[in-house]
């Protein structure tokens, strides 16, 4: 059999393969370059970018949990301008397709980041990370409210030149409702899903393990939740491309997400264990497609036996 076709089209953007790396889990790529050829990746979703630099939270910022980890980085990033000046050219030079993840504390801030990235060379898509406290409306995250979600996406769409993906949080009563708000707001695609809110306590010191007490749970532990979310969202919006993420650590995991309805995937926490994880997953996934005699990766999405 000839090699399986791996190219995927997400909202008009062609990726050489569907294996991306997740925001915040690949920084801006540099740290991985000594270990692997970044061109093996479909693309890199970079660490979320804000208008101004964000400092992030004090340590401890991480704690391992059974088959997972909690993090409380607090979206530390040098700001979108520093990224454009310093990190983006490096990625572009290496021919790595970049998906820019953006964050803000208000609709206004999201719009400003998206605006800066307008026509930025090499930025093929925008991922809007709405798992961020909404300072206009205290208490809530954008991701937990359909109106706030819609407002952010409409605003971003107004200024951005690239296709927009909205990254949904699992911590909602009805993820389809939020997906709908994003799609109605003009989101071209959806990233499903971000971390789940969790907490861990050290029973020896009797302190929370994270400085912020609660933080984002990631890793294989949450994969079943992510598969469920992808399935629900893809069945509600079959035409909308989905980037699946949450606990991916093998080629079979990639296949599982695509069977659930994802068009592409992003590898997150697994990158931390081994800088070459994404390459290993790519190889395993190609082996799977070959063994299953799947000629075109985009077929997988339609292969779930639901009968």
């Amino acid at each position: 059999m000839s090699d399986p076709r791996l190219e995927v089209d997400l909202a008009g953007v062609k990726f050489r393969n569907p294996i991306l790396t997740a925001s915040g889990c690949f920084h801006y790529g540099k740290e991985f370059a000594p270990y692997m050829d970044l061109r093996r990746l479909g693309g890199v979703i970079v660490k979320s970018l804000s208008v101004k630099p964000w400092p992030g939270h004090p340590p401890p910022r991480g704690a391992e949990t059974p088959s997972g980890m909690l993090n409380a980085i607090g979206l530390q990033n040098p700001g979108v301008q520093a990224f454009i000046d310093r990190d983006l050219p490096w990625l572009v030079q290496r021919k790595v397709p970049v998906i820019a993840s953006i964050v803000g504390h208000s609709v206004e801030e999201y719009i400003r980041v998206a605006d800066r990235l307008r026509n930025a060379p090499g930025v093929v898509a925008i991922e809007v990370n709405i798992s961020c406290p909404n300072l206009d409306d205290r208490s809530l995250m954008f991701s937990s409210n359909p109106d706030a979600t819609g407002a952010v996406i409409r605003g971003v769409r107004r200024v951005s030149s690239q296709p927009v993906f909205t990254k949904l949080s699992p911590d909602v009563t009805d993820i389809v409702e939020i997906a709908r708000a994003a799609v109605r707001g003009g989101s071209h695609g959806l990233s499903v899903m971000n971390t789940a809110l969790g907490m861990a306590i050290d029973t020896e010191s009797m302190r929370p393990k994270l400085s912020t007490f609660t933080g984002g749970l990631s890793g294989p532990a949450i994969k079943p939740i992510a598969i469920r979310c992808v399935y629900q969202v893809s069945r509600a919006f079959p035409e909308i491309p989905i980037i699946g993420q949450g606990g991916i650590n093998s080629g079979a995991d990639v296949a599982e997400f695509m069977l659930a309805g994802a068009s592409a995937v992003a590898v997150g926490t697994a990158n931390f264990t081994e800088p070459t994880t994404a390459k290993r997953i790519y190889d395993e996934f190609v082996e799977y497609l070959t063994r299953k005699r799947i000629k075109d990766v985009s077929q997988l999405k339609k292969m779930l036996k639901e009968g």
Partner: protein
Amino acid sequence: MSPTKDAAWSGQVEVFAYRRLAEPYHSLTIVAPDICARAAPGQFIAVRTPDDRSLLLRRPFSIHRVDRRPGWAGTVDIVFDIRGRGTEVLARARQHTSLDVLGPLGRPFRFPKEQTNCLLVGGGIGAAPLLFLAEELRGHGHRVDYILGGRTSEHLLRPIEAKRASLTVSFTTDDGSSGTQGVVTDILEERVRATKARVVYTCGPVPMLRAVARECARLKLPCQVAWEEVMACGFGACLVCAVPVRLERGAGNDEGWGWARCCTEGPVFSASRIHWERVEDAPAGVTT
């Protein structure tokens, strides 16, 4: 290229020896010629605990010693105490156990440019990187003296090796079971004078580092600290291992400080670079 930009070596290694040390400590010698050849004191390796997939992340351990004897494969030693499931599993490794390691990682201790007397100050298991440092400093012709602290005499890390690697070793213990009863800073000034030390290297629990740094500042001695912060990746990708450091104002920084990554910008920092006011003595979740 600076060492942090180089790829660390990554792969399966074999355990050459497991040794039970004095009460709370364990040591593993691994056969890792590539790491051995490139390692410098202060750097660390990141070890995956074998078999148990519920443990996702590597565990960082300071390089305690390397053996580069000619004709020898090249081995690396780590020493550790049992903190949780990961170290518990590692303490069951034996000769021929296969381990997945990544290293050497991080920036090493900087060596004095000219022949200088060096005082090494370590507390508990934190003293792990000092033996390698002592051996290399002496190899470069520097005089090395040691202060080792611990809760009890059993918590003094490998006192005999420390003695072999240095001119003098002084001990302090909380309970007085060895050396001076008290903490390392109780004898620091006296030892500096006695050894004519011009530079201090230290590692151990945060309250000790803080006290040593303060004392060195008072004595106007340069001091390097090896920092331990909870890590996820160990190679700069996750931003988990934040250490507060002083920064020049400007360039988007109006506050004069920021976070450094312990894994790539550390674990060794100049004590004067640490923003001590922002360091918590007993950070949540870390029990030392």
